[in-house]
């Protein structure tokens, strides 16, 4: 390989490195030296797969013909800022494991050293070597078991083997196609602690999940977007609208719940009358005794209880003042029960409540008459039943607050529910998967 005359190509004011071009010792293709620092040990030709020793005049270490470049929106030489630090992409490694493929891009900063950008199915992580090591037990933990690196606690995600399928550019070690490593990953989104174990060493890295759009903008990648597939192990849940809605709904859940409970406990009104109608009374219809209502324009509740069993009945109820009907209503009762292979079952209720208001205080009567009914599944003979009637005035219905409670509870659970569904997707691929 011959070095060409130096060509200083400062591509940006922040790039002070001297970019040179050399010829590959394998195929003669021009290779750009991206100024990756003195820890670069190998230069890898993307064209022919030749691996060269960066510290021994680019002597050929290995050749891997026919390597196919994996897909990635990034290219060698691209520059961009991550956490306000300018980086250059100087190397690339393609990986494969159990049908999944991903790309690690080696980044170099003259002030902050080396880092990686991991790209997998539209997800991007910023990866750096960490000196805060977890306990060696990380290699034997089960999914979801905890491990700490001294700075934060992680949950073990998965262990697997991975093979190198592609190498290009400058790397801080001699990577070869076919090299295999064992990996272990533990997560504390947006962070992922990973251990990589090869035949010669064990290293640990800390990944931070980055929003892909942010990285694309930083590296001036515009136009086409690459949708994210599934949920990445380190991807943080992001549902600002649902979370905001849930937060906003929480006080209303409490308020409507307290009010509904208070009304249920104390809103039953005052009992002003009780009377029992016998079957004969109901067959022919009968007036009740005089009922003194002192609080007009407030709800009056008729609480009625029959002894219907496997029967239904329809009652006409008239409200009378001075013997004159001022209005009427119908009320149907239906109650069926039995046993089958699943056990006891029941349907409907032998009791019911009816509400009405009167315009002025005074003495009122009720006329109640059985209008129709039947027994069994098909019978149409009106059933024999009694009817216990209790009248309360000043009744306050909790109905609307119960509806509000239901609606606000659903809204309050929206955020946590979405988060749970997101976590299920995250763990779906590893739950029950113990390939080690």
């Amino acid at each position, binding site marked *: 390989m011959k070095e060409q005359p130096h060509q200083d190509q400062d591509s940006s004011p922040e790039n002070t490195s001297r970019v040179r071009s050399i010829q590959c010792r394998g195929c003669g293709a021009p290779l750009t030296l991206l100024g990756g620092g003195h820890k670069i040990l190998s230069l890898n030709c993307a064209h022919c797969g030749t691996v060269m020793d960066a510290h021994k005049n680019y002597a050929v270490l290995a050749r891997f013909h026919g390597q196919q470049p994996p897909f990635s929106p990034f290219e060698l030489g691209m520059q961009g800022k991550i956490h306000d630090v300018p980086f250059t992409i100087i190397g690339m490694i393609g990986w494969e494991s159990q049908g999944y493929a991903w790309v690690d891009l080696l980044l170099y900063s*003259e*002030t*902050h*050293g*080396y880092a990686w950008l991991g790209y997998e199915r539209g997800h991007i992580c910023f990866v750096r070597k960490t*000196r805060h090591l977890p306990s060696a037990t990380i290699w034997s933990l089960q999914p979801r078991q905890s491990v700490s690196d001294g700075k934060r606690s992680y949950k073990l995600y998965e262990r697997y083997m991975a093979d190198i399928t592609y190498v290009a550019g400058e790397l801080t070690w001699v990577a070869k196609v076919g090299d295999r490593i064992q990996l272990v990953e533990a997560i504390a989104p947006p962070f992922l602690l990973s251990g990589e174990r090869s035949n010669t060493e064990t290293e640990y890295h800390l990944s931070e999940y980055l929003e892909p759009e942010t990285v694309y903008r930083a590296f001036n990648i515009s136009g086409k977007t690459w949708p994210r597939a599934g949920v990445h192990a380190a991807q943080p849940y992001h549902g600002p609208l649902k979370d905001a809605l849930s937060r906003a709904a929480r006080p209303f859940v409490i308020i409507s719940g307290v009010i509904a409970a208070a009304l249920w406990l104390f809103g039953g009104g005052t009992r002003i009358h009780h009377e029992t109608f016998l079957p004969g009374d109901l067959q022919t219809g009968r007036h009740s005794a005089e009922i003194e209502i002192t609080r007009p324009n407030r709800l009056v509740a008729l609480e009625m209880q029959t002894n219907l069993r496997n029967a239904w009945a329809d009652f006409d109820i008239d409200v009378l003042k001075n013997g004159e009907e001022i209005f009427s209503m119908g009320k149907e009762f239906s109650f069926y029960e039995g046993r089958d292979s699943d056990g006891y079952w029941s349907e409907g209720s032998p009791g019911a409540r009816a509400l009405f208001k009167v315009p002025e205080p005074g003495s009122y009567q009720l006329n109640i008459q059985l209008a129709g009914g039947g027994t069994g599944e098909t019978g149409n003979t009106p059933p024999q039943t009694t009817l216990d009637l209790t009248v309360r005035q000043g009744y306050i219905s909790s109905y609307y607050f119960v509806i509000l409670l239901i609606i606000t509870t659903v809204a309050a659970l929206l955020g946590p529910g979405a988060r749970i569904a997101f976590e299920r997707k995250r763990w779906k691929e590893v739950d029950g998967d113990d390939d080690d």
Partner: protein
Amino acid sequence: MPITSDQPASYHCPNCGAELPLRFRYAKMAVCEHCDSTLFLEDDGMRLAGTRSVLAAMPSLIQLGQGFSYDTRDYLPVGHLRYRYKLGFWDEWWILDRNGDGLWLSVDEGDFVFEQPLQPERLPATPLPGFKQLQLNRSVRLLEQDWTVTERDRGHCEGFRGQLPARVTEGESFFYAHLSGPDASLLTLEYPQDGSVNVSRGYWVDPFEIRIRT
């Protein structure tokens, strides 16, 4: 708060006469900012060492005289050494905290380490291991802790700037070994040519957590 010391007086460069305000009390060596003369500081004044030290400007997060903070503490770099080794070079910065106490910040392509020289009384009574005993990946028990030898090489002084707590000679070399311990700790053993052993203890720091004061 600017980092200052109770150094009673400033000196003047014996070569060019420029004022040489000292940043810290125990400076043993300084490079005149005006004429690049190397000066040895002695009890009764300073002596012109006669050599000049010029370091090539390289991109660096740490700059001489520019304060920075890490983990809620403020530091000021006042001295700068550069060493060459097999792969390239690394920089050593002598930094002062708010109290004027100094420590070393070692920087090698994004690998940052704070290190404090250990005084002889803190070293074990038993002899320290020789450089040849510290083979890569070998486990060593020192200072009541287990360490692993993760790097061993030879460093050559390329030059220096600013004010330093010890005399350094351009071109001098020494062997060194890095021993890695738990919780990002690091022990460095240096073997100068005079047969002594210098021990420093410190820890790795994340450059992304260093905040440069502007």
